[in-house]
C-alpha cells in the first residue's frame, strides 16, 4: 500500500472515539502545563507519562504526542503575557510577544502564536508523512556498526553542544550511559552494579528517573527561584474577539510561518537538535531575510510567527528519526521513546512494516491533534490570565505530590520513589553547575542499543574495530561525530583569536 493509503488507514484508526478523546485530553493538559511558567515540555511529558500506562500503545502515544506539541503551543503563553518562557523553545517568542503585550496587543500576539504553531506543526507533519517511510527504508540498510555510529552521532550532536560548555555536555552523556549499565547485562545475563538489590536487577526504571530529573529537579529550581518568578501578568482581561488579527497581519504572518515551518522541520530531523535550536535558527533567519527585519524585537507579529512556527515544526520533524531510526531528536522525544519501549514497541526501520497501524495511527492523529490544539488554544485565550495566576508557592507542593505518585505508580514500588528523589537532587545539582541534564536522558535511553550494536559489530569482525570504518555509512557518521565534537571548540578558538586581534588593534 502507498503512503496515502496507509495514511487513510491511519486516519480510520485515529478517528476512533477513544483516540480522539485521548488527543483532546492530551491537548488540554499539554496547553495548561505548557502555559505554567518554568515547567516546559520535558517536565510536562515526564509528569503526565504515568497517566498513559493503562492505555493501549496507539492511544497512549497519541495522548503523549498531543501533550508534547500542545506544550509547544502553551510555552508561548507565559512568554507573551509574563515575559517568562514556559519552555526553552519559547525564549525567542518573548522578544516580540511581550513587547506586543505591553503595547496592548496581547490577544493578537497569542492569536499569532497559535496560528503560526498550527502552520509550522502542519508543515512538519506533512513532511514527516513522507520522510518517515523514506528514512526507515534508508535505516533498513544499517547493520550493527552503522547503528552504533548513528547513536554515537546522536549522543554528541550539535544541539547538546550548543550549550555553554561542550565538555560538560559530553560528561552528562557519559553519565547517562553508565547509569544504563546498571542491571543485568543483556549479552551474557550477568548482573552489573546492582549492589545486591533485587530492585536494580532490571536496571534503573526509566519513568522515576525521568520524573526525578525533570519534574522534581524543576520543583527544587522553583523553590530556589520562587521570589524572582512571582511576576504578574500585565493583562487583566482577554477576549477572543479582541484577539482577532487584521487581514494585513495575516498577510505578514503567512510567508514567515511557512518559511520557518520548512526550516524548523529540517532542524527537527537532525538527531539531538530539537525545538530550541530550531526556534533560534528560524528567528535569526527571519531577522536576516524578512521584510520587517528591522522592527523584529520591538513587538511585531513576524518575530512570534518565526519562533512559534519553527518550534512546532521541529517537534513534528523530530518524530521522523524517532519512529524510523529509533533516534530521539530531543529530550522530550527521548521520553516518548522510553514510553514506546515500555509498551513493548521497538522504534526503528522495522516499525513502519511491523506496526503500521500504530505508526500511521500516530501520524494521522497528529493532523487531528494539531487542529484540536488550534481550536483549544484559541478557546483558552480568555481563561489564560487565570491559569497564569496560579502562584508558584502553590505549584511546588502539588508538583512534588505528582512526582511521588507518578514514580510510585509505574511499579507499585517505593524504591522507585527513592530513585525519583535521588535523581531529582542530582539533576538539580548538575544543572546548577552548568552540566546539561537532557543528554543524560538521551544517553540512558540509547545506551542499551548502543552497547548491543557495538558488541554485535565487534563479534562479527572477531574483535576488529576496523568494521566501523569499513562501511561508508558508518565512516561518514563517525566523521560527522568528530566534527560535531570539535566544532564548538574550534569556533571558540576562532572567536577568541578574533577578540584578541580586535583588542590588540
Amino acid at each position, binding site marked *: 500500500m502507498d503512503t496515502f493509503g496507509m495514511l487513510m488507514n491511519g486516519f480510520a484508526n485515529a478517528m476512533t472515539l477513544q483516540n480522539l478523546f485521548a488527543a483532546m485530553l492530551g491537548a488540554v493538559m499539554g496547553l495548561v502545563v505548557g502555559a505554567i511558567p518554568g515547567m516546559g515540555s520535558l517536565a510536562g511529558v515526564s509528569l503526565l507519562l504515568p497517566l498513559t500506562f493503562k492505555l493501549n500503545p496507539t492511544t497512549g502515544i497519541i495522548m503523549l504526542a498531543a501533550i508534547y506539541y500542545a506544550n509547544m503551543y502553551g510555552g508561548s503563553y507565559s512568554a507573551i503575557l509574563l515575559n517568562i518562557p514556559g519552555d526553552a523553545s519559547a525564549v525567542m517568542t518573548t522578544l516580540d510577544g511581550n513587547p506586543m503585550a505591553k503595547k496592548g496587543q496581547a490577544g493578537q500576539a497569542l492569536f499569532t502564536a497559535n496560528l503560526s504553531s498550527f502552520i509550522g506543526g502542519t508543515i512538519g507533519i506533512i513532511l514527516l508523512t513522507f520522510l518517515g517511510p523514506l528514512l526507515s527504508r534508508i535505516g533498513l540498510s544499517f547493520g550493527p556498526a552503522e547503528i552504533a555510529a548513528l547513536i554515537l552521532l546522536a549522543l554528541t550532536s550539535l544541539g547538546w553542544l550548543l550549550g555553554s560548555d561542550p565538555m560538560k555536555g559530553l560528561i552528562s552523556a557519559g*553519565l547517562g*550511559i*553508565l547509569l544504563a549499565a546498571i542491571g543485568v547485562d543483556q549479552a551474557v545475563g550477568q548482573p552489573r552494579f546492582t549492589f545486591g538489590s533485587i530492585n536494580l536487577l532490571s536496571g534503573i526504571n526509566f519513568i522515576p528517573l525521568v520524573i526525578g530529573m525533570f519534574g522534581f529537579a524543576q520543583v527544587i529550581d522553583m523553590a530556589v527561584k520562587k521570589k524572582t518568578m512571582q511576576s504578574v501578568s500585565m493583562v487583566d482581561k482577554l477576549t477572543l474577539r479582541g484577539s482577532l488579527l487584521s487581514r494585513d497581519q495575516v498577510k505578514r504572518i503567512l510567508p514567515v510561518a511557512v518559511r520557518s515551518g520548512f526550516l524548523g522541520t529540517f532542524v527537527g530531523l537532525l538527531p539531538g537538535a530539537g525545538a530550541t535550536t530550531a526556534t533560534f535558527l528560524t528567528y535569526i533567519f527571519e531577522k536576516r531575510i524578512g521584510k520587517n527585519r528591522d522592527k523584529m524585537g520591538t513587538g511585531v507579529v513576524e518575530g512570534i510567527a518565526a519562533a512559534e512556527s519553527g518550534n512546532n515544526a521541529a517537534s513534528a520533524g523530530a518524530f521522523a528519526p524517532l519512529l524510523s531510526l529509533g533516534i530521539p531528536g530531543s529530550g522530550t522525544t527521548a521520553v516518548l521513546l522510553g514510553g514506546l519501549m515500555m509498551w513493548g514497541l521497538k522504534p526503528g526501520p522495522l516499525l513502519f512494516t511491523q506496526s503500521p497501524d500504530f505508526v500511521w495511527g500516530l501520524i494521522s492523529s497528529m493532523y487531528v491533534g494539531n487542529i484540536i490544539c488550534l481550536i483549544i488554544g484559541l478557546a483558552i485565550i480568555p481563561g489564560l490570565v487565570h491559569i497564569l495566576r496560579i502562584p508558584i508557592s502553590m505549584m511546588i*507542593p502539588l508538583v512534588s*505530590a505528582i512526582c511521588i*505518585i507518578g514514580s510510585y505508580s509505574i511499579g507499585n514500588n517505593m524504591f522507585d520513589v527513592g530513585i525519583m528523589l535521588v535523581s531529582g537532587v542530582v539533576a538539580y545539582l548538575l544543572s546548577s553547575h552548568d552540566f546539561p541534564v537532557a543528554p543524560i536522558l538521551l544517553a540512558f535511553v540509547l545506551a542499551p542499543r548502543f552497547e548491543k550494536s557495538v558488541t554485535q559489530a565487534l563479534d562479527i569482525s572477531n574483535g576488529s574495530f576496523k568494521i566501523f570504518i569499513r562501511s561508508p555509512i558508518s565512516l561518514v557518521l563517525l566523521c560527522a561525530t568528530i566534527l560535531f565534537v570539535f566544532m564548538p571548540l574550534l569556533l571558540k578558538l576562532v572567536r577568541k583569536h578574533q577578540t584578541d586581534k580586535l583588542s590588540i588593534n
Partner: protein
Amino acid sequence: MIRKLMPLFCVGFGGYFAVMGIFKYHVWDKGPRGGFLPLVMGLFVAALSFVVFFRELKPAAAGNGEKQRSTFNFSMLIPPAVVLTAILASYLVGLLPAIGLMVFGWLVILEKVKPLKALLVSAILLVAVWLIFSMWLRVPFPTGIFKT
C-alpha cells in the same frame, strides 16, 4: 569550592565504573563483554571530569565558584527534605494520607497559605489522585499501619 565538587563527584563516579569494569566484570573475550562499556565510558567520564576540575581551579573559575558559594540557597534543601519525610511517613500512615499531609503542611508552614485554603487544595488533590490512580489505573497504594 562547590563548583569543584561536581567534577570531583563525576571523577569518582566514572572511576568506580571503570575499576569495577576491569576487576569484577569481563572486559574482553574475543569481543567486548560486560565490563567493556563501563570501563571505556568510566574512563571517558573520569578523564573529562578531571579536565573540568582543573579548569575550575583556575583563578577566573574560582571567582565564579565564590559567586556560587555566596548565592548558595538553602531553600534547595526543602523539597527533598519534605519529600523524604513523606516517604518515611507513608510506611506509617499510608502513601495517600502522607501526601495529603505533606501538601497541607507545606502550604501552611512553608508557603504561609491560609489553613482552610490549604485543606481545600490538599483535599482536591487527594480526590483527583484517588479517582485517577486508584479507581482508573487500579494502582494499589501502600496503606501503612491501616492495612485491612
